[in-house]
């Protein structure tokens, strides 16, 4: 283990399931005494509608039991506050703590979505600010902050495209999606009633213009394009692409998952795209939370503005209010107004950076990715080695001859103290390792990562089994996922004890 500079072993405590820890009679709560007459539920509700299992099976625990349980679990996780988390296209950047503080202000956490507008002016101001800030950053005409996540934003965007085309008399049949796209793109298009046709990438990893030219006909509602794409490459022909799609009556959806490469440098609104979503949990540093909550605001051109979900927040004089009077709106995509407390964090982040900070972030992120590519290019293949932006996609081609695959490299990286990159994606790169360092990594951490990757490449050559059986430093080894899927156990049962 001497060559591993970043981590050393540490005790890790065992912890059973809540249900296995539960002891009859233990309690971890105390309510204020009931200050109105007690009621027998049988009297007012009737026993036919009441449950009679006495909630058997739910845990009984004291407060210290609960705290220890979850804090022990927490120590089994890797996290961005512990080290580099280079998941490509996920933008695992630092989550500033002031954002967390702002989102926990009681004025925000206790404001109720059904309260009169006069009682929630502060919350409305935050939504309005989020709309305005994101408009300027994207260069688009209008923004909705209602969608709860990126995929939800995609769906919202395609629904608006559909609504617009329907209004013109023909919704059309299908959506074109490059083969390098995230899986949510095709899945979102299908929810909106469209078939999906895949466009191959060209040799450089960009959208194949000739193929687009061939397929873009009057059955195509539009194109969904990620820019920069999932290979970390800017779609250089973006203007021609938009022009071509527009000339043939379609619209262009830009997946803004990779906006961390563009903020302050260029704006989708200037490129000709009609609609895009941003992932605030990526570009705007709101925490990923172990799988959400995110936020997927959608920005649109003037053409699509009438179709935005209701309500928007507008400013009248010094007052903020909801605007429901939008007859062409696609309707609501989520109850209430979006993941509001996530918006508080994002607004705090944008205000803390300012225009120069936002631009510097982008530059630092792209520099970090290029630095990694530069130092690892001779060790790991970069199949589409163009002008790399915020992320770089390596493959396991050089290691495969020793029988070592990308998944093995990923697991071995864990022993070196790093979270693995995004694996086996994009699909057009066999054995992909997609690395996005973000601007939050120091050169020292990047150098440790480079060291680790080179060291693993040497191990693959000299002792492939060492890599193939990794990790060694974790509390459990590789889990048998095939058996888990064949005979799924998706909940605890008392009989398991």
């Amino acid at each position, binding site marked *: 283990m001497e060559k591993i500079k970043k981590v050393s072993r540490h005790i890790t405590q065992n912890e059973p399931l809540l249900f296995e820890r539960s002891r009859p009679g233990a309690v*971890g*709560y105390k309510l204020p005494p*009931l200050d*109105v007459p*007690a*009621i027998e*539920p049988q009297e*007012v509700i009737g026993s036919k509608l009441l*449950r009679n299992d006495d*909630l*058997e099976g*739910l845990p*009984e625990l004291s407060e210290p039991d609960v705290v220890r349980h979850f804090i022990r679990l*927490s120590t*089994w*996780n890797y*996290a961005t506050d512990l080290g580099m988390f280079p998941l490509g296209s*996920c933008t695992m950047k630092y989550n500033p703590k002031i954002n*967390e503080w702002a989102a926990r202000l009681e004025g*925000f956490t206790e*404001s*109720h979505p*059904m*309260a009169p507008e006069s009682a929630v002016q502060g*919350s409305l101001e935050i939504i309005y600010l989020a709309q305005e800030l994101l408009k300027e950053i994207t260069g688009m005409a209008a923004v909705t902050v209602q969608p709860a996540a*990126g*995929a939800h934003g*995609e769906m919202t965007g395609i629904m608006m495209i559909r609504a617009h085309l329907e209004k013109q008399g023909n919704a059309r049949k299908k959506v074109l999606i490059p083969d390098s796209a995230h*899986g*949510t793109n*095709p899945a979102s298009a299908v929810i909106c009633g469209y078939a999906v046709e895949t466009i191959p990438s060209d040799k450089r990893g960009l959208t194949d213009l000739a193929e687009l030219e061939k397929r873009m006909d009057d059955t195509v509602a539009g194109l969904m394009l990620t820019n920069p794409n999932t290979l970390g490459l800017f779609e250089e022909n973006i*203007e021609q692409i938009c022009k071509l799609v527009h000339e043939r009556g379609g619209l262009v959806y830009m997946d803004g998952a990779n906006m961390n490469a563009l903020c*302050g440098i260029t704006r989708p609104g*200037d490129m000709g795209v009609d609609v895009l979503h941003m992932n605030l949990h990526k570009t705007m540093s709101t925490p990923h939370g172990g*799988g*959400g909550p995110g936020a997927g605001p959608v920005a649109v051109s003037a053409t699509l503005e009438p179709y935005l979900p209701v309500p928007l927040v507008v400013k009248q004089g010094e007052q903020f209010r909801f605007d429901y009077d939008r007859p062409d709106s696609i309707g*609501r995509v*989520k*109850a*209430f107004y979006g993941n509001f*407390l996530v918006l508080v964090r994002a607004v705090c982040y*944008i205000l803390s*950076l300012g225009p120069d900070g*936002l631009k*510097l972030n982008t530059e*630092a992120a792209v*520099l970090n990715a*290029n630095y990694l590519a530069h130092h690892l290019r001779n060790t790991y293949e970069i199949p589409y080695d163009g*002008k790399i932006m915020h992320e770089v996609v390596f493959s396991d081609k050089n290691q495969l001859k020793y029988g070592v695959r990308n998944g093995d490299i990923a697991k071995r990286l864990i022993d070196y103290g790093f979270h*693995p990159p995004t694996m086996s994606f994009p699909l057009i790169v066999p054995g992909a390792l997609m690395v996005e360092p973000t601007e939050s990594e*120091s050169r020292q*951490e990047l150098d440790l990562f480079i060291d680790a990757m080179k060291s693993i490449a040497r191990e693959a050559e000299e002792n492939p089994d060492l890599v193939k059986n990794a990790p060694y430093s974790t509390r459990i*080894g*590789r*889990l048998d996922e095939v058996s*888990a899927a064949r005979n*799924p156990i*998706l*909940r*605890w049962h008392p009989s398991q004890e």
Partner: protein
Amino acid sequence: MRYVPNSAEERAKMLEEIGVTSIEELFSSIPEHLRLKKLLDLPPARSEAELIIFFKEVAAKNANLVSFLGAGVYNHFRPIIIDTIISRSEFYTTYTPYQPEIAQGTLQAIFEYQTMICQLTGMEVANASMYDGSTALAEALLMAVRITKRRKVLLPQALHPDYRQVVETYMKRGGIVYEYVPFSISGITNADAIAADTSTAAVVIQSPNFFGIIEDISAVAEKAHAAGSLLIAVVTEAISLALLKSPGECGADIVVGEGQSFGVPVGFGGPHVGFFASKTKFQRQMPGRLIGQAYDATGKRGFVITLATREQHIRREKASSNICTNQGLCMLMSTVYLATMGRRGLREVALQNVAKATYAARSIAELQGYKLMFDAPFFNEFVVKTPIPADQIVERLASEGILAGVALGRFYGGLENALLVCVTEQNTRQQIDDLIAGLRHFAEEQ
């Protein structure tokens, strides 16, 4: 910039090392004329001290009032340890547990959450979360359409109005027909009016419904099943599950709902957490992440994302849903809440809600000019018939420090003189008495 570790000198050195003369060169693949020539028109960067002042000021613009608002978002007590635990960096600064060896904390917590959602809903399998209750319902309907290969759904008029709007948005684009089932004068969905037939994929029932009334899910389930349709139960007030017969026991095929009541802040409507539960026979049609038990080569138990072949990152356009990022941290809040309140606390909270709501409802019904709109049993919300339009009462009492409830006129034509009042364990008897005194006022003005 305080969030970028590399100094200007260090960045210059890195540029030199990689053989690039200027930072602009790294962006040369963006056509020159598309690159911004000036900074974005955004407010200048603020220091932490300035941000603290700014956000305190904005938050203070929200009025701090005694609240009787519910309608899908409930003011329940949140044990302090919820925020202690979710503030652990290992939970909130990590991501979807794609690498199980270093994500067992998240994975085990989800497995525990799935288990407790199954226990409370009376179902066999639950997923790791949906965005919220409304989108969970829309996804349940799409799932029912996939399972039955039928394209019509029946929704109750007494469904939460935001949920109705969300479902309509999803159904329209998917080409699915929806029809509404009216409610009776008791406030209960009229089971006799449910015309499920061989084209009906699903019948939806919300209980407690938007008016707070507890529905007879079993009766609706019988109607649905007689036509070969699925019964989808929706729960917007999750605390009710601690007291009421579980939807699963009543015959539901899919149970969805809003988990906000389990320890998630009101937060102006989000982020909250949708739950989604069903039967084992339908698990391969479910949307969202599922966590399952697995073992390593030495026999140690762990947990992994499983049955992923339903999901978009593998199946793309053939996936059961487009959902990817969901509500992980809110799910964790719920798990901590359920563990802390536990078997005994959940029931006690539910009983306090019933007692306080009953006290409030009886007291208001005694006021001259007021009565209860519906006579069916309710949980912690009820509709009051008011002597003047309810929105006027809400505005006036708000200026006196009380959010009296939700005026129903904007959601239901003909219910202008109806106020939806919610009373939880957070409302003291004094607050309830103040509300009653405030309401009395309007009757006297008549």
